[in-house]
């Protein structure tokens, strides 16, 4: 017979379990990874504020910030004939208020100063796009840009208005009864070089000098830009000013490297033309190879700040010279020879303060460190020490292309150094970025940067598809697809923090919940995703979260539209208190300053927080991560 008594509710009532058998959890707050990527610490005992992955998050001085997007500035080619060959190098010309930006591929040099569909090709044929440039103002007051490329094409010179090619390679001697067109070059018997200014036919008899005297307006002994030709000694490889692959300025002189050799050349003081004088350097180096680049380097040797001239070879040898006149043995001497690993390109260096940073196969090395350390220990002094494994991986994959570095002082109001990791297919496009204040590294993905340059405080880069892109603008990337069409693409910022042990490395923990806190502007509809990797495995990363809504262009300078720029009809003006005084609706209430507690539910003996955001919006995102908190349950040791 079954029990038919009524349920006794009091007896069935449940109570909370006693405290000692309830779940015991540990709260833990992790700071944003201010130290950036840290790949050279033991996983189990990582110090706080490190990141294992920091893609498209830039470590600022006190948080990590979501980067901006990219937009096409212009592209190479002309209307009807787009040129989608890779941009090899970019450089700028700044003289007073004249600011110009140029980009080269392997066939053309282009003025890309202005935004537009196409840049303006310079009508001078070139056979290589990897340029080295130097700017020098002559005593005449004109600022010249001198450019040489890896092929040793005739030196190009820009005076702020037009380019000339100092092409003396096809020069022939002047002859009687010969028609000369404007621009034709002829050599006199004294080896002087003359340029035709008026089309004419030379006299049937007499000397060149007599012909010039008879018609003084027919010939000029200077190139079109007014400065001198660059010529080398008779019998030298650079007699016609060709074969020069690198140029820099040191103590008022232009120095050149003769490609594939151990010879450097220099011009007179404050001159952008004239006769080249040789500096033979083969005796200064021991490992062979050829000169790759040179530059000026400021250093204090204990007797005040001094300016040195350094020469770097393809094998990583550095010779340091000092003095003002290489032709004067008293005033020019070698001070040392040092060894670094192989540099990754003739433009893979930059000047930071007085020091020079060189991107080598081992990382980015300051020359000041190369003086005091053996090559074997130099990598520990490299500013890339914390990302050494990543650097080596990129170096092995992409060293067949020349690398470049660019310091962008204005980036994020903080300053950053950008390093190209050039080339690669879609999905493999990356570059490295380091905060120059803190030395913290991150990585930018989706930027097809072959080379960087800045102009007016804005950074640009050239792509493999012949585009010039403006960096860090808007909230989406612009990527050239297989049909040569620029497409708006979202991008994902991914952060994987350092491994966290919750204070007890032997224990297994269950990360129950996580919470990420942000600093954003009022209208930022991003959707963060917090997950957790366990047990030292964080790849592949989880699929990115959805894109948040697009709030449109922000009401900030250079983004908000007003007046005639705004699409009609205008919104109906509302109460100023509602923020409707201008052309856009009032921004919505900020809705994502914290994720609140999000379930994690990952079990393991090491946990790494993962925060991902996918961005696709008109305005540049304004999102910073401050911290991540966890609630973790300690499970046990021997399980």
């Amino acid at each position, binding site marked *: *017979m*079954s*029990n*038919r*008594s*009524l*349920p*006794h*509710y*009091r*007896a*069935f*009532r*449940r*109570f*909370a*379990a*006693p405290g000692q058998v*309830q*779940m*015991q*959890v540990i709260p833990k707050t992790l700071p944003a990874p201010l130290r950036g990527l840290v790949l050279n610490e033991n996983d189990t005992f990582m110090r706080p504020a490190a990141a294992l992955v920091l893609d498209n998050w830039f470590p600022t001085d006190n948080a990590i910030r979501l980067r901006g997007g990219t937009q096409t500035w212009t592209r190479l080619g002309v209307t009807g004939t787009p040129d989608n060959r890779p941009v090899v190098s970019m450089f700028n010309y700044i003289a007073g208020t004249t600011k110009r930006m140029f980009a080269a591929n392997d066939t053309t040099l282009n003025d890309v100063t202005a935004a537009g569909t196409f840049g303006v090709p310079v009508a001078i044929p070139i056979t290589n796009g990897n340029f080295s440039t130097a700017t020098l103002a002559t005593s005449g007051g004109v600022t010249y840009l001198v450019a040489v490329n890896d092929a040793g094409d005739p030196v190009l010179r820009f005076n702020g208005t037009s380019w000339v090619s100092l092409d003396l390679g096809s020069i022939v001697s002047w002859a009687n009864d010969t028609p000369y067109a404007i621009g034709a070059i002829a050599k006199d018997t004294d080896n002087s070089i003359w340029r035709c200014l008026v089309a004419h036919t030379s006299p049937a008899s007499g000397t060149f000098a007599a012909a010039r005297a008879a018609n003084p307006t027919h010939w000029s002994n200077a190139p079109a830009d007014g400065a001198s030709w660059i010529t080398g000694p008779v019998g030298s490889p650079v007699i016609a000013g060709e074969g020069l692959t690198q140029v820099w300025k040191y103590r008022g002189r232009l120095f050149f490297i003769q490609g594939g050799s151990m010879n450097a050349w220099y011009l007179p003081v404050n001159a952008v033309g004239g006769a080249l004088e040789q500096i033979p350097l083969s005796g200064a180096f021991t490992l062979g190879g050829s000169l790759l680049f040179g530059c000026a380097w400021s250093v204090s040797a204990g007797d005040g700040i001094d300016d040195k001239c350094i020469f770097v070879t393809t094998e990583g040898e550095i010779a340091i010279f000092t003095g003002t006149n290489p032709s004067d043995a008293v005033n020019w001497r070698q001070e040392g020879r040092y060894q670094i690993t192989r540099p990754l390109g003739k433009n893979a260096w930059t000047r930071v303060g007085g020091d020079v940073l060189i991107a080598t196969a081992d990382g980015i090395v300051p020359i000041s460190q190369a003086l005091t350390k053996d090559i074997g220990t130099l990598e520990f002094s490299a500013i890339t020490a914390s990302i050494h494994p990543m650097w080596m991986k990129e170096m092995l994959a992409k060293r067949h292309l020349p690398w470049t570095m660019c310091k962008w002082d204005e980036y994020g109001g903080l300053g950053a150094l950008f390093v190209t990791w050039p080339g690669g297919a879609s999905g493999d496009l990356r570059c490295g970025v380091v905060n120059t204040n803190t030395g913290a590294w991150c990585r930018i993905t989706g930027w097809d940067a072959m080379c960087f340059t800045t102009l007016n405080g804005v950074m640009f880069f050239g792509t493999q598809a012949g585009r010039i892109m403006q960096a860090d603008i808007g909230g989406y990337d612009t990527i050239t697809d297989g049909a040569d069409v620029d497409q708006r693409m979202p991008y994902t910022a991914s952060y994987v923090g350092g491994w966290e042990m919750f204070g007890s490395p032997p224990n297994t923990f269950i990360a*129950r*919940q996580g919470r990420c806190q942000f600093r954003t502007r009022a209208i930022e509809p991003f959707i963060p995703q917090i*997950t957790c990797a366990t047990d030292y495995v964080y790849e592949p990363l*989880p*699929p990115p*979260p959805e894109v948040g809504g697009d709030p449109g262009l922000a009401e900030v300078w250079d983004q908000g539209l007003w007046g005639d720029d705004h699409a009609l009809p205008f919104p109906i003006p509302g109460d100023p208190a509602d923020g409707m005084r201008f052309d856009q609706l009032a921004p919505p209430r900020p809705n994502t300053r914290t*994720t*609140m*507690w*999000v*379930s*994690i*539910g990952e079990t393991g003996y090491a946990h790494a927080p993962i925060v991902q955001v996918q961005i696709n919006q008109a305005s540049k995102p304004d999102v910073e991560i401050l911290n991540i908190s966890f*609630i973790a*349950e300690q499970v046990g040791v021997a399980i």
Partner: protein
Amino acid sequence: MTVQSVVREVCAVVGVREPAGSIFVLSTQDRTAWEMVQLANEMSQRIAYNTREWQNFRKLATLPGDGTTSAFDLPADWQRMLKTSEIYSTAQPTLPLTFVSDPDEWLVDEMNGYTEPGGAWTIYGNQIHVRPTPPVGTQLKFWYLHKNCVALTSGGYGDTFLADTDVFRLPERLLKLGMIWQWKANKGGTYAEDIANYEDALSTVAGSDKPAPILVGRVNLSVAANQSYPFLTPSAPETPYP
């Protein structure tokens, strides 16, 4: 009120951001929402099956006798028999069939050809087995607790939530309070206050789910009175957990 609104109310209390859209997402997309749905399913079933024989979930089953069938499939929505359920036959409506709980006893009786005077039944293999075989025209009837505690938007009922607009068939406040304490317990939070709130609500709702038994003296006169022990019974102990 829907399960989505219940989840949102729970989120507001337990410190979790309300899901912006559907709560039915993959755990890889939004683990929080996914856990909320799992908890809503667990707690609604726990309330429906484990706390009381809710009148709303009682259902009458009828097994038609055809003279040959002695094993009948359980109803598709069968959760369990009511605690006091008996099986009655239209052939003898005043006495229930005897329930044989022990399989060996059922086997021994069968091998001995013995049949209980009023007939007998047992349950195994998700079937109700009856002896002797019900003749043609008779019907076996019994009460059971069905499992469909969710009213589905797509039509009909089910035992789990499948869409945001599905509705719990008992008071949703009960579900909300249950989810709150269990969520906090799952996350290592302090939940003593929350479980007390839930238990209070459960007692109140359960108390009004069926008319109060009519007591004369201390002997109840419910329908079950005809089988009850004819003397006073001691009260159940009131010792609280544990």
